């Protein structure tokens, strides 16, 4: 798209009088400088949480899954809730880098790197749960269809839990490749600037000898587009398959055909909320205010509103159809009067409050463009989307077909500890990333500087009307 014709009413995406060199300097500063006290404090807290989580995981594996709060009717609760929550968070990264690339959204360029990092670190956390929630995790490799000495005993390909294995592992590999490809020019930039031999060596290894020739760039662009085209159906199918863990069952409340697109919409909703949370902090601590601007925050909020709206329609459909089925069992699903008034009413109403009510504030432009309000609302959505998954899983299981199986779930400290541990692990990775990786794709931002930079826009507006 020709930049010379950009409409004057488009707001700038890069603020200030930035030159190419300024962009480089702003982005390498955290990498070339030293970490401050706050970083060490945050890192220590995250590390302690992570180690605590490791302890809880080892305790679970060593002692048995019975140390969790699960019971014989509610066999899935926090484990799968956290799994779906983390996978969902991971989706915004691919959405930002792939879907927004397909839609030629230039504002994506300031946030895609961190969003993809978030994807990868979130999928790491998600990937833990399918392993540790197994009763015999050491037999976990049996999920793979590998020839073996049991007369080549294979897996049954009919289970969505097996599809999960393929979905998550493919998703992680493709995201990783996509992310790394985009990093090559940026690593090369750091390599070329490095003065310390050790650092130079590391970044030379990471950048795969990128030299930035025209042919390389051409292929780079083509690969990015093809990967974006592949990652988009992938991102839809991954969360679809996750949703099918529930939707293929016959549990009232789980068996629902809307789950595939609705889980995907929810994933984007929660993922964007997490991006908003992280970038809200990052733009401040890494001094990236010129790149992650109010406009970026507003655009992300608009995506949150749209996907939140889709999720709201899905809730309404679930609620309506549950009644419309005429089946008395549907009276206790996670979206029903039974849920709203039952023992998990607080979880139901938390969901409504955090996912449906609070995000409506974003209709107000002042709120949408406010950093602090966006931050608060994004946290609310992270909480709300956790409740959504918890409600779908625990409320539905707590009141199944037979009243004699009706029960409740109470988490133990191990359930909580594992979850806290994954949050710690996530931040350990993210904090390390923020110190060693270029958190903004400088190569991409440099391509829009002249079309969408504030300074150049002013020059253009001064010279001619359009």
């Amino acid at each position, binding site marked *: 798209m020709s930049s010379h014709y950009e409409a004057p009413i488009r707001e700038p995406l890069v603020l200030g009088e930035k030159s190419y060199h300024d962009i480089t300097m702003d982005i390498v500063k955290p990498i070339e400088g030293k970490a401050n006290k706050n970083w060490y404090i945050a890192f220590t807290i995250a590390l302690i949480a992570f180690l605590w989580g490791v302890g809880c995981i080892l305790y679970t594996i060593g002692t048995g899954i019975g140390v969790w709060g699960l019971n014989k009717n509610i066999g899935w609760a926090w484990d799968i809730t956290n799994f779906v929550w983390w996978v969902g968070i991971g989706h915004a990264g691919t959405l930002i880098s792939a879907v927004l690339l397909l839609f030629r959204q230039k504002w994506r360029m300031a946030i895609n790197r961190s969003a993809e990092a978030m994807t990868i670190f979130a999928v790491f956390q998600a990937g833990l749960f399918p392993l540790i929630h197994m009763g015999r995790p050491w037999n976990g490799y049996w999920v793979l269809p590998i020839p073996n000495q049991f007369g080549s005993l294979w897996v049954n390909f009919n289970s969505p839990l097996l599809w999960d294995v393929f979905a998550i592992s493919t998703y992680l590999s493709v995201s990783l490749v996509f992310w790394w490809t985009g990093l090559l020019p940026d690593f090369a930039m750091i390599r070329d600037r490095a003065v310390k031999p050790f650092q130079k060596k590391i970044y030379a290894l990471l950048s795969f000898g990128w030299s930035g020739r025209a042919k390389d760039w051409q292929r780079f662009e083509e690969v990015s587009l093809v990967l974006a085209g592949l990652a988009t159906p992938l991102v839809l*199918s991954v969360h679809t398959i996750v949703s099918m863990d529930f939707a293929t069952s016959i549990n009232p409340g789980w068996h*629902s055909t809307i789950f595939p697109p609705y889980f995907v919409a929810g994933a984007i909703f929660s993922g964007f909320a997490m991006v908003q949370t992280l970038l809200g902090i990052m733009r401040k601590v890494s001094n990236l205010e010129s790149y992650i601007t109010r406009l970026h925050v507003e655009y992300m909020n608009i995506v949150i509103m749209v996907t939140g709206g889709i999720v709201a*329609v899905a809730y309404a459909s679930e609620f*309506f159809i549950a009644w*419309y089925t005429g089946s008395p069992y549907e009276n206790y699903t996670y979206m029903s009067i039974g849920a709203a008034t039952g023992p998990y009413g607080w979880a139901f109403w938390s969901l409504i409050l955090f996912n449906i009510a609070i995000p409506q504030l974003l209709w107000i432009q002042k709120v949408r463009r406010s950093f602090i309000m966006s931050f608060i609302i994004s946290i609310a959505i992270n909480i709300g989307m956790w409740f959504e998954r918890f409600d779908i899983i625990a409320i539905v299981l707590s009141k199944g077909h037979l009243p004699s199986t009706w029960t409740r779930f109470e988490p133990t400290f191990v359930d909580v500890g594992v979850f806290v541990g994954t949050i710690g692990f996530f931040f350990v990775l993210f904090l390390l990333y923020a110190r060693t990786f270029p958190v903004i794709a400088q190569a991409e931002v440099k391509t829009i500087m002249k079309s969408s930079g504030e300074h150049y826009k002013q020059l253009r507006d001064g010279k001619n009307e359009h």
Partner: protein
Amino acid sequence: MYQFSSKLKISAIALMVVGLIGIIIGFASAPSTEAEVAEILAHQESHGTHGEAHATKEVAHHDAHAEVAHENHHEGVKHDAHTVDAHETEAHAEGHSDHHLAHVLHQLQNRPWAAFYVALFFFTFVTIVVFAFLNIQRVAQAGWSIVLFRVMEGISGFLPYVSVIFIVFLVITAFHGNHLFVWMADGTVDPTSANYDELIANKQAWLNTPRWLISGIIYLVGWNVFRYLNRKYSLLQDNAGDLVNYYKNYKIGVAFLAFFIFTESMSVWDWIMGLDPHWFSTLFGWYVLATALVSALTVIAMVTVYLKSKGYLEVVNNSHLHDLAKFMFGFSIFWSYLWFAQFMLIWYADMPEETVYFVQRFDDYKFLFLGMIPLNFILPVLMLVNSDFKRIPQIVLGVGTIILVGHYIDVFVMIMPGTVGDQWGFGITEIASILFFLGLFIYAVFTTISKAPLIAKGNPFLHESEHFHY
């Protein structure tokens, strides 16, 4: 300014007239008494193969229905053994009894109505979704599609015409002019009636004729109000010195999309899912949206290619076409995704009250039901994955035709089983309905396009769109 060529106008009118005659023939040839039905059935039996197939089908039906009844009984839902086809069970058990004759009579009488309804629904949804897409483009501040805005507005110009027909149709249906919606039949909610159906009676709060009619009118009038306002401000913006009208339209677009996402699902529950009142699927509203969305994008592309070929859209280049074709490609996959998600989840869990929907389609509509997969998925994907192909008007037209046929079949397979069951056919009445709406569509759309300049010149993104190159 576009000049509506007299040749095209006459063709459109001819299509309408031919269509109308065909529709009348369809209605006139529908049987009016059970005696006629008996004769038709006897005729069908005499054709060996068809008779055999029919008999097999009947057995299959009976099994499926019995199973459902059984299952529902287990679940404690006390109601008659009525299923999707509310009147079928006992009738089939007794063979060709009077009950069965009455049932087939209803189905045969439904056929011209259903044929008309398939075309009406298809054209209405395509039109409203074109308008929704226009608003998405506006609200997203797209920079490429401004030069196509008047095309989309022109297609949306069909909305008032088709809405009037739709409202008349809703009123006739609500006042028992046809038997399309079995739940509207007399006595379905009356426990003393032979027609009583407890499942329907339980859903009375939603499935009741006044609510159904009033909601239907609200959806249609609501959409038309948004379209009217949108068009008004779009035209005003052409000669405005400021962007006041542009911002108004932006807000109208946001409000419409919020209104539409809810009313779309509800209208689909009312107008399509209600045809099989025992069946339900939470995804259904979005699935129908996907069908309409692919068709809408195709229609935009086809009208654009036509106008361009007549030399009216100079600034539209093959990059614009490429973008439209990409949307056709992407949303064809999206449709397939939803089709598969809905089908697979119901097939996998195999709960009888849901599975009957697909059992019936597999038994009686196998060719169409499976045939739409290559038309809607395989061919568009194979043809449009190549980016050079997406820039060639002939290929876009060719694939577009396939897509439209495929999605018409999709709507056909949604509507027919619940209304005419195994008495479906594809003959004069079906073709005539398509021709009538096609003629009216061409007439309305090109009349609307001829009323305003083809370029929305007041739009602040016009300059970007004119120089759009991908």
